[in-house]
């Protein structure tokens, strides 16, 4: 009888410690403004007023506040991942847990979106003057190149099929390359992609760059880069399914000696503000070098390349091999490739259609006004498959 009482007390105490503990610590702990793990701003304590209570804003925001600011939030999410793994689920939030600590993003082919996007690219390319060449590097994703790392139970569409489909749909005047098979059979392919992020690494980007140059019939500059490593990188896919046993990645930043690079942020900001090192010259933010040093220490380290994604960036590389001007239509896969592009072309304009607005001139106008003769598209398969910003090419 007595033992029964003690057991009951233990259970009650544990329960009370649990709910009061979380309660007290959640409220006592300083509220976070921003979650690096989730890459979003968090709800702050809502304003309490007659109005906000009456229209229901207060209660809604309070619930979000509690969920966002709960004590040990990031650790709790990691516990959830472990529980999902215990149920032997190989996928969480569209991300597979692959072997060798690789996260692999699910790929489901969406032909409707692909056809739409390719349609925009085609009509854009076909409308350009004949003396402008257009090339297209389609970057495969880790899920296809490293498909041998997929878990036993997985369900993905074949990216090689999607690449073939894209190649068939593309206008004849676009020189297309997708090095999917080559990357699959390459030695050291495990180093082509980050384990925890959806991007490719400097090595993967180099492979893509070489394939593009070969396709364009250009020679590949032989450059000795200086390397800098950013350690402890946990990327976007880790945030989808945080897991205590995940292995961090290392980002390699490449700098070419004697190649002075000036970067001008001419268009509206995209997913980041311009790097801190920028000076404003004639109202245009500009700086030397490709990397934003202040982002080396944050979680979102990939944004160190170019300081994130921007609508329009104009780059001058004094030590480039060729004096040509090129326009690159790109997604974030291209950012890792920029050291290579800068060793090749003197004047580069990077254009990210995602943040394009109505007020700017069209891409075609830009090309003719700036005497650009080479247009390069760099997109990863997943991007072409899902993005809907290509309409801005019209």
């Amino acid at each position, binding site marked *: 009888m007595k*033992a*029964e*009482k003690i*057991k*009951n*007390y*233990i*259970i*009650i105490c*544990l*329960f*009370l410690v*649990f*709910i*009061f503990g*979380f*309660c007290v610590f*959640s409220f006592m702990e300083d509220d976070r403004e921003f979650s690096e793990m989730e890459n979003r701003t968090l709800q702050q304590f809502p304003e309490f007023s007659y109005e906000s*209570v*009456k229209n*229901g804003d207060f*209660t809604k925001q*309070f*619930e979000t506040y*509690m*969920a966002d600011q*709960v004590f040990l*939030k990031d650790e*709790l*999410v*990691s*516990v*959830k*991942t472990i*529980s999902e793994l*215990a*149920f*032997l*689920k*190989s*996928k969480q939030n569209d991300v597979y847990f692959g072997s060798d600590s690789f996260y692999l993003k699910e790929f489901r082919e969406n032909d409707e979106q692909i056809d739409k996007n390719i349609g925009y690219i085609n009509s854009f390319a076909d409308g350009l003057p004949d003396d402008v060449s257009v090339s297209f590097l389609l970057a495969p994703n880790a899920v296809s190149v490293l498909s041998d790392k997929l878990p036993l*139970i*997985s*369900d993905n569409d074949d990216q090689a099929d999607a690449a073939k489909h894209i190649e068939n749909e593309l206008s004849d005047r676009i020189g297309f390359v997708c090095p999917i098979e080559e990357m699959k059979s390459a030695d050291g392919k495990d180093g082509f992609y980050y384990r925890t992020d959806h991007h490719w690494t400097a090595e993967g980007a180099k492979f893509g760059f070489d394939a593009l140059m070969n396709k364009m019939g250009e020679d590949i500059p032989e450059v000795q880069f200086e390397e800098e490593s950013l350690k402890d990188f946990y990327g976007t896919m880790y945030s989808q399914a945080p897991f205590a046993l995940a292995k961090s990645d290392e980002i390699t930043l490449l700098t070419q000696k004697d190649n002075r690079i000036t970067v001008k942020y001419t268009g509206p900001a995209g997913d980041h503000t311009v790097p801190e090192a920028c000076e404003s010259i004639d109202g245009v933010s500009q700086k030397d070098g490709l990397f934003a040093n202040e982002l080396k220490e944050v979680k979102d380290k990939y944004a160190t390349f170019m300081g994130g994604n921007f609508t329009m960036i104009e780059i001058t590389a004094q030590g480039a091999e060729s004096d040509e001007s090129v326009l690159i239509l790109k997604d974030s896969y291209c950012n890792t490739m920029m050291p290579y592009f800068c060793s090749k072309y003197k004047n580069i304009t990077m254009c990210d259609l995602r943040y394009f607005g109505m007020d700017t001139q069209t891409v075609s106008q830009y090309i003719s006004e700036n005497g650009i003769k080479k247009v390069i598209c760099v997109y990863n398969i997943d991007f072409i498959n899902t993005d809907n910003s290509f309409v801005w090419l019209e």
Partner: protein
Amino acid sequence: MVFSSITFLFAFLPAVLIVYYIAPKKLRNLVLFLFSLVFYAWGEAVYIWLMLASTVVAYVTGLLADRSKRKKDSKLPFFAMLFAIVWNMGLLLFFKYTDFFINTANDAFGMNIKVLGFTLPIGISFYSFQTLSYVIDVYRGEVNSQKNFLTLGAYVALFPQLIAGPIVRYKDVEQQLMQRRETVDHFAKGVRRFAIGLGKKVILANNIGALFTLISETDQSEMSVCAAWLGTIAYTFQIYFDFSGYSDMAIGLGKMFGFDFLENFNYPYISDSITEFWRRWHISLSSWFRDYVYIPLGGNRKGKLRQCINIMIVWFLTGFWHGANWNFMIWGVYFGVILLIEKLLIGKALKKAPKLIRHIYALFLIVMGWGIFAYVDFTALIQNFKNMFGLGGVPFSNRFTVFNALTYTVTFIVLIIASTPYPKKLAARLEEKKPVAFAVCEPLWIVLMLIVSTAYLAGNSFNPFLYFRF
């Protein structure tokens, strides 16, 4: 507010527990009443007036319906009860069913009446039934009328059972409302029950619910016969763990405040017949209909034919109670018909059949029932059944099906085991044979449930609550 939320667990519950146990006994009903009002107003502040109005109506009609306080031939108690019936049914009809009737009339006669577009007041189906049963019980003399408004108010608004039941009858908690002893033993039982309910809802129901949502939203071109079965079976588990988990939490919370609510579920999926299933599923609802509809209609005392009619009326209403949609009515009638068939035709044959056959028979009909219940949209409902029986022009299986079947294999195994009384029996055995091991394991198990449930709540936005609609 729902129990399965961070706000409830780490803000509301600590607050109500502290204030409740600090308050002197006399004030505890007031504390419960006020916190319950906050709990209710949290989601839909306006409708709190509706619930309070219903409470006032129950209070006044309850007093008037008390025949022991009136002259023998007074008609007043009867009319008071009648008013309570009209009020509660009126509210339900108005808020829950008006738009349905308007839409039906519009469709049937090509009319163009505007719908009201009210959102359904939370818990109205539950508290209407509760206040109504109170007044009727007073009229029948089964229970005394409650003179203290606060006591009755605490009963109606009592937050553990407010929004999704179980339907607690006044006569079952009358004593506890007026004087209850909160004990350590009681509280500990409540914690155990709450933790298990939370886990059932957050870890199991939400998990398998994701599979049902995925399949029900899958394009017809991707579907297969097996996927349709997988989806319907997923829903079968989702609704049980969702609803019974919520009932467990309600019963557990009740115990923390010294209340004993009656059980609402008793392992329904181990049933060997539909008759048995309905003795084990949502017990508080079926017994409500039995006591306040079936028996007053004459039950089985007025001949076979009349009994059959009564059964059909009850099951039609049971279906309709679940929502203003055709599929719920079909679902109710479906079970009414099966119950009649079991009663009149196959009951005896069924008893002689091997246990396995009986079990498969019952499960098959239960799953079919959820197939009707799951789809509010009639076209989707028909399509799902066509797909299940190979008439939907879909393949038997495909990659999508195999992937999801494999992904959820462990989940299904856990769900099946958790649907049976075996885990409970196993725990009882352990407690008996190895009391020390049990004493160590049980608290760990409870803490694990709480932590993992919290992890799911913190880590996902997928936390829909199914029984909110009803």
